[in-house]
């Protein structure tokens, strides 16, 4: 709080006093009062006024400096009313009360939406688990049947399963709780799992696979990584060229990380689009041309990677292919041996 500005804000008050005093002065000079008396009246009039203003300034300065100091340092600014002390002057108390009230109300409001979101999330989770039972039984029915449509029905079921999984992970990715469990596993497991999931597409589209150079263990959540890898491989399959599709997966070991690279020789992504592939809802030129893109897959991958503390990047040359790198950090912290 600046004394000069405070004084300026009190200026009208002082000016009014001065004007009244001047009027008084005119009256007194008409009454031929001696100058000393006029000066005495001035002192009696203005010194308490000034003392009052100064005292007021001091007490207010303490409170407001407190607030402004704290608010600048505070990370979560809405916590302010819970930190500051109640001031000892009337107006301050009113403000203090109002602030606390606002804060309380805001918390209630936020909690309301938090609960709403939590309930919704819980509903989605149960729904996903419930729908998995009929899918499981449908899969078994398809497996046991001898009909011609067996394979294509199976494929469709698998797609349904994938979309449901996507919903589940989307819902998990927006949650504040991190419900994953970190443990050590072989990167190769994750890749094999994804290829197994999509094997029919690989066979039908005659895409060959090379995962010879995948090695090493990483320490993170297996299921989330499985999901991420699966999404990337689905993309590679979706945008592969009609013949001679090749999916090459390999790892490179750095000083403090393992980089998993998933490389295809598909249609690639144009220069303008590359930087935006991880944006939510971004489908780009390929999405428009091939019309199967939702713009959710890679966005989710990015988000899940951020949550797990993994790095993800994508390079692509249009017409040549796409390369996705997932970087697993291997700090001293994760090397639990």
């Amino acid at each position: 709080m600046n004394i000069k500005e405070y004084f300026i804000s009190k200026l009208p008050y002082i000016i009014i006093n001065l004007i009244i005093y001047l009027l008084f002065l005119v009256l007194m000079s008409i009454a031929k009062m001696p100058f000393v008396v006029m000066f005495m009246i001035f002192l009696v009039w203005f010194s308490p006024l000034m003392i009052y203003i100064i005292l007021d300034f001091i007490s207010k300065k303490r409170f407001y400096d407190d607030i402004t100091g704290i608010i600048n340092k505070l990370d979560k600014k809405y916590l302010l009313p819970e930190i500051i002390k109640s001031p000892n002057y009337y107006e301050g108390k009113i403000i203090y009360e109002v602030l606390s009230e606002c804060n309380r109300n805001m918390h209630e409001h936020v909690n309301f939406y938090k609960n709403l979101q939590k309930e919704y999330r819980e509903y989605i989770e149960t729904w996903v688990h419930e729908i998995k039972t009929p899918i499981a039984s449908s899969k078994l029915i398809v497996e046991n049947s001898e009909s011609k449509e067996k394979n294509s029905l199976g494929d469709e079921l698998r797609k349904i399963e994938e979309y449901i999984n996507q919903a589940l992970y989307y819902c998990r990715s927006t949650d504040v709780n991190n419900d994953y469990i970190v443990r050590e596993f072989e990167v190769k497991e994750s890749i094999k799992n994804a290829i197994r999931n999509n094997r029919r597409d690989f066979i039908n589209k005659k895409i060959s696979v090379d995962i010879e150079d995948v090695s090493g263990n990483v320490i993170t959540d297996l299921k989330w990584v499985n999901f991420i890898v699966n999404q990337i491989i689905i993309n590679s399959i979706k945008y592969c060229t009609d013949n001679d599709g090749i999916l090459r997966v390999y790892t490179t070991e750095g000083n403090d990380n393992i980089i998993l690279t998933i490389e295809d020789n598909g249609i690639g992504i144009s220069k303008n689009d590359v930087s935006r592939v991880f944006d939510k809802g971004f489908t780009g030129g390929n999405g428009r041309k091939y019309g199967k893109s939702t713009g959710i897959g890679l966005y989710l991958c990015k988000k899940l990677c951020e949550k797990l503390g993994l790095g993800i990047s994508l390079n692509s040359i249009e017409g040549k292919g796409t390369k996705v790198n997932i970087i697993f950090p291997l700090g001293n912290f994760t090397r639990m041996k």
Partner: protein
Amino acid sequence: MPKIMLIEDNENIKKELSEFLMRYGYEVNAPIDFENIVKIALKDEPDLILLDINLPYYDGYYICKEIRKEKGIPIIIVTSRDSEMDEIMSMNLGADDFITKPYNTQILLARITAVLRRTSGSNSICEIVEHKGLKLNVTNGSVGFNENGVDLTKNELKILIYLMKNKGCIVSREDLMDYLWNSDLYVDDNTLSVNVTRLRKKLHEIGFKDGIETKRGLGYILL
């Protein structure tokens, strides 16, 4: 024949899974009385229990715990709850394995064989499939006929296993490739043809002649 008890309350899954497991040579018992399920399981003494979590009366964790108190029957928990907590809880209660729905049936089968092999002791470790005197040792990948024997490569072994499981039926190339890819063997069309030819040659060498026939446009058949 190993006896599997299927504890599952969903009628469809129960029916289809029983059918599926029976096709692969298991004896399946799926009880309907969930109130006394623990007693039934203990009395029946199956070689393996496939257990769902969401069940009427008691949940799967409770059943798993109760069975474990009495007997060491291998238990595989099969559930649609897939959080890590569920998995850890199952393992803590003594389940031997944990599979989430909807499962890949080949993986389910593989897990079942693995658990059975692990728990049944050393005598039955090597798994032998037989067809018209042709003995296939799945564990060490060799095949024998009369006195002769020959070792198979991984691809050949898998192809022969699949043909033997479906003996007398036409196996399409598509299904065969699907099976191979499911076992993490990424073969293409040409490799498959080469492998089948080599396999045929090897079988021929040990005296098992004209076993694998090609049905043009349809696939292969083991006679």
